């Protein structure tokens, strides 16, 4: 289907990950990559199952579960699935919706081209990963 409504484009524009994208590029993003909705309890990505995408939460919450143990909570603006795509390995965790969850999805085989075309998004992503890494180090250390 062609074209988007204002709401999907607006939801994308509100996320810090895409804050540096000019409006026409957000429109192109909305047209290129659709949204997906998950019910509470539904799995979004699956530990050890290949081919998962990159997800950005537009609305709702999810939990990260490794071997049945909850490790983290994810909220609007958070993203997941990128580590598995960047390392070319199956996901190391399940991500499970804990409410009605609305996400933007970029398929694994399109993420690289998208980030190379939109370096400001790649830079924002790196900043967020760096913060996560620092938080993890503080936690461990």
């Amino acid at each position, binding site marked *: *289907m*062609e*074209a*988007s*409504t*204002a*709401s*999907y484009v607006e939801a994308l524009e509100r996320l810090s990950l895409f804050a540096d994208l000019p*409006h*026409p*590029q957000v*429109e*192109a993003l*909305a*047209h*290129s990559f*659709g*949204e*997906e*909705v*998950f*019910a509470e309890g*539904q*799995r979004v990505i*699956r530990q*050890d*199952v*290949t*081919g*998962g*995408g990159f997800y950005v939460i537009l609305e709702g919450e999810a939990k990260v579960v490794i071997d049945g143990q909850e490790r983290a909570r994810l909220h609007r603006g958070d993203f997941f699935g990128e580590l598995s795509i960047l390392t070319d390995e*199956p996901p190391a965790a399940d991500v499970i919706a804990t409410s*009605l969850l*609305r996400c933007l*999805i970029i*398929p*694994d*085989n*399109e993420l690289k081209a998208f980030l190379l075309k939109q370096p400001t998004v790649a830079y924002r992503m790196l900043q967020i990963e760096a913060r996560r890494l620092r938080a993890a180090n503080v936690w461990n250390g």
Partner: protein
Amino acid sequence: MERLAERPFPPGEYDVVVVGSGPGGLQTAYSLARTGIPRCAAISRDPAPGGMFRRFPVYQRLISWTKPDAPFDRGTREYEWYDHNSLVGHEREHRALAPEFMDRAFDVPARAEMESALVAFAERGGVRVRYDCEWLSTRRDDAGFVLETSDGEYRCRVCVFAIGVTEPWIAPIPGLETASHYVATNAPERYQGKSVFIVGKRNSGFEVAQGLLPWARRLVLGSPRPVDTAMLAFSPLSIRYLSPYTEHVRGGSGSYVIDAAIERVERLGDGYRIQASGTTWEGRMELVCDEVIAATGFRAPVRDLPTLGVAMVNDGRMPAQTPYWESLSVPGIYFAGNVTQASTGLRKHGATSSSGSVNGFRYNARVLAGHIAEHHFGIRPERRRLDADELVPHLIAELARAPELWIQKGYLARAVAVEDAGGFRDEGIVPLADFVDRDGADACGVAVEYDADGTIIPVVYVRRAGRLTEHALPSHPLHDFDTDEHRRQIAGCLAPLLQSKVGTSLG
């Protein structure tokens, strides 16, 4: 037509009510009638079967193929892989009806041929529908749902909406509402000698552009997303509608395809002015033209379902669904037909299902009928039992030839459960996402999938002691998965299940 002229299913109480008489509704009603659920009704606002194919495509030719002659005989299960337009019958005389009506001018049917095949399916398959009965509104009651219709109230435990994705949807671009929608472009002579801007460049955009090529003076197709030529090469569109794009790539002879976010459409005297910003190029553009056509797609005519709590997706255009095509947010409301494309499955490596066309959703509807029977009415179909030595040949045969797996790649799977008493039990065709996410019992499933490079491969999933493992098997240059090597590898994947069986039976 006498049977169709009857008006069955008066308002009242039913177990299941199906709304719609397009291919999705007909397949669902046909398959439900064979499950043993006692009271299934079907209603439709149309006067006759066929759904969207009573009117669309505007230019009267489908883009999905049917090969009247194929390596397998019509009416066999294997033939379905060569015939993407017929509904699927339980009895042989209801199968492979689309090729009967084709004049073989093309390998894709004309609209009228498709419509005739659907009418024939309804007649020969005894699909009863109350026509001219329009669903108007919906509410819940203690036992399920109440559908208010033009004929009165239908109460049911479960309802299935097979209502198509046919309501013209105009993108919220200021001024675009003054343009014609794709559905109103069926008189191409109206565009003779005119300069036409088409907003949108997916199926309907290219279809209308192709239709206007012999008439219009200049055609410009515009939307933010660039055309993906690699994908387009394998798109059903490539069969018929790509001349405007070919002209553009060769330097244009009046046809242009541009990547731009359309910001505004304004009336300007007898014509229009379009303001747009480039997405794959920098800058803005202003274009003046005689006519604007909005080919921005369609939405499902869901009426008041969102107010009942049905969550929507794709900018509110389609209901969000579980792997079994149930509303994510309102249990008991199911969907069939084209709209099941919004139940996306695992989307491994971004692969999409074929649920947006007849070849895919005919299987979804059949699986759905069985699911409703079992889940809501406790009716389990007879399941084939398999001995340990039958398991590998069974799965190999499915991977090699099952039309459900080949058409719904990475979406539908063949599942087999391990029986407590020893041996195995075929569980039929199931959504792959459901199989992968199920908890518990030992089982295996097979699917045909695309790998990360787009190569078609067989994949085996094994659940053992609550843990799922995924095994990608080798591709084959002729897509022949019925080889000794595949047999050997599948046996290797299944070894934990087979060994545990031996252990059980010896113990």
